[in-house]
């Protein structure tokens, strides 16, 4: 605790002290060099904190996961079809092993992500195209900030909206059509999540489309193509790698999104592809397993870290690929 407070003071008061020291020693070359060395060390250590964070994430998630896999075989976890961790609260309990087959969670996450992408990709891409190719400066100045507001709304607000407004609306509509829809359907969470990542897709695609050189457009117009033909046949193919990169980033965000699914999707681990049924996701289970009083050594708590590891690895892979693709693409036209 005290060490921590010292660390705190170090990071907050340290810079102020160093800057003052630099001023006091400005007439003394030797002393100033020493202060400058200190400053450089401070700067480097700050830059390393980002590395430490990643290492910390990997280590903490990995260690707890390894402990989990000692209790539950990794193959059971990755390929098991049944998920019911709630039974494994106490070790002396009957049937205390619980079931930790995570396939229903992966399927649920996948289903909701697909629904979100079905909403976000066409809407986001078309908005980006409209904003960069068609919109008058006035429309652009008006519509772009509005879409950005959508990106700035906290996800807990979306979650509340999904659970309180969108889910009952879908249920009512389906009821009047004669369907039976769960009140925590994957559809409600997916649709709202799609709207949440719409501005994300649109602003990334907008960037990408804008970096396609004007000469390519002019060439196409010169051959007599209409604007939409130019967009579809010239700009989109040219921008495709970048657009795919932005989609991957959006997928990674949808997979890692927590609050919307915690509030609007269910807890029951159903293995289904039906969007009207209730499914659960990796993030929902991490939150449910960790909220409330818990023993840190029970497999139930450790399971959350194993899920976290899967989540981290998958999003990391998506991010690395996406960032590399986007970077390569931008270099191509620079």
């Amino acid at each position, binding site marked *: *605790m005290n060490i921590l407070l010292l660390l705190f003071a170090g990071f*907050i008061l*340290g*810079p102020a002290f160093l800057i003052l020291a630099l001023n006091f020693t*400005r007439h003394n070359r030797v002393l100033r060099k020493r202060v*400058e060395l200190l400053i*450089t060390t*401070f*700067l480097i250590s*700050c*830059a390393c*904190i*980002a*590395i430490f*964070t990643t290492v*910390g*994430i990997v280590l903490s*998630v990995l260690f707890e996961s390894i402990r989990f896999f000692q209790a539950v075989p990794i193959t059971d976890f990755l390929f098991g079809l049944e998920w019911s961790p709630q039974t494994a609260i106490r070790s002396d309990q009957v049937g205390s092993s619980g079931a930790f087959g995570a396939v229903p969670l992966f399927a649920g996450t996948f289903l909701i992500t697909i629904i979100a992408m079905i909403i976000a990709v066409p*809407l986001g891409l*078309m*908005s980006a195209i*409209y904003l960069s190719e*068609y919109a008058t400066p006035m429309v652009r100045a008006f*519509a772009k900030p*509005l*879409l950005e507001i959508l990106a*700035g*709304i*906290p996800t*807990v607000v*979306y979650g*509340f*909206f999904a659970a*309180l*407004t969108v889910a009952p609306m879908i249920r009512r509509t389906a009821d009047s059509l004669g369907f039976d829809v769960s009140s925590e359907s994957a559809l409600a969470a997916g649709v709202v999540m799609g*709207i949440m990542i*719409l501005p994300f897709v649109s602003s990334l695609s907008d960037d990408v489309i804008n970096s396609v050189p004007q000469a390519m457009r002019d060439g196409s117009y010169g051959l007599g193509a*209409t*604007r*939409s033909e130019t*967009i579809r046949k010239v700009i989109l193919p040219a921008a495709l790698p970048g657009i795919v990169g932005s989609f991957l980033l959006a997928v*990674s*965000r949808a997979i*890692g*999104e*927590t*609050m919307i699914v*915690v509030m609007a999707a269910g807890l029951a681990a159903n293995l289904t592809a039906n969007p009207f049924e209730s499914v659960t996701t990796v*993030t929902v289970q*991490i*939150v449910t397993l*960790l*909220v409330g009083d818990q023993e840190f050594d029970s497999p139930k708590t450790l399971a959350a870290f194993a899920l*976290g590891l899967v*989540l*981290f690895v998958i*999003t*990391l892979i998506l*991010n690395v690929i996406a*960032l590399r693709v986007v970077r390569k693409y931008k270099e191509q036209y620079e």
Partner: protein
Amino acid sequence: MSTSRQLVQKTLGKRYARERRFRWYGALSILVGILFLGFLLVTTVSNGYKAFVQTYVQIDVDLSAAQFGGEITPESIAAANFDGIIKDSLRNAFPEVSGRTDRRALYGLVSNGAQYDLREMLLEDPSLAGGVTPVWLLADDEVDVFMKGRIDRNEPEANRRLKDNAIGWIDQWVDEGRVEKRFNEPFFTNGDSREPEQAGIFGAIMGSFFTIAVCMLLAFPIGVAAAIYLQEFAPKNRITDIIEVNINNLAAVPSIIFGLLGLAIFLNAFGLPRSVPLVGGMVLSLMTLPTIIISSRAALAAVPPSIREAALGVGASPIQTVLHHVLPLAMPGMLTGSIIGLAQALGETAPLLVIGMVAFIVDVPTSPLDPGTALPVQIYLWSDSPERAFVERTSAAIMVLLMFLVAINGFIVLLRKKLERRW
């Protein structure tokens, strides 16, 4: 006429139609986004605006000296049974009510926090005591919901939580002018409560304040220092390359993973207490760090090299050049980036859930080491409550959160206009 020209002419109408359709799809997509935004805001406001007023009922309370053991002193007031006093007064107001269930329904019209309000009132102004005094008391949440027109009196009695007899008493009070809606002060000054009419967001706001303060105190200096090193001093080699890729990836890691990090390292390895804003702030600072570093680097990169060359030319050391000349010029950009990070941290919920800031806490935190919750977490907690009155409060809390975000973003725009310069 050549054949190819005929061909073009023949298909031209179709192509133009397709062009128009394509354009329409684009406009429509934007419209969908904006309509959704409007829909979200309108439902939130229409659900929540009524939470800013609260129903009070006026009751003739028997505050004669007998209730205080014969003598009215601060001590006797503090010791008096105000719950009993209010119940007596309610019975006096409706003497015809008898039977346990009916009486309990009658007592239920007034919030069970009203006794404490009444005590406060008397301690502040003892002259109120001494006889039968009309006093405005906080009504129960069911009465409040009814007065706001969210309970349909025509519905079958079994489906309502407020029964016919209670509605009868309320109607009588309304006729006598004893029911009033006032500005909902408790909502802005109280901590959380199980009773909707007593629940407020002040505890959550203070929790958010401490969390964000810790977050910014850590993330801003570290982020700026890291950006300075990476942008101005770092040699171009593999290690700095790794750091850079690492920072970009860290910015895209799901926020809940940072919660897991906080749980495993800050809570379990360092043994810090659960549910405190200090830990929340530390976790959020790691989360906002990449945002701050990336925007600070952009701000540093925007300072023209001529500034650096001039400073170096008159004999400043590289460190002096950066700290005395480049940094002040890049500061507005860095501040803007940090405030964007702050807005992000303010709306963040998931990592705080994992490190235990979801506990039910009534007391308003007074330091970063007191157990507390944060505004978005409070929204999550209330959204889970079954009472109808909490829906209203959740929406109102969302309005307050969005108001803060609007204020922060307005501040960013202002800062950009005022301070940022183009070279």
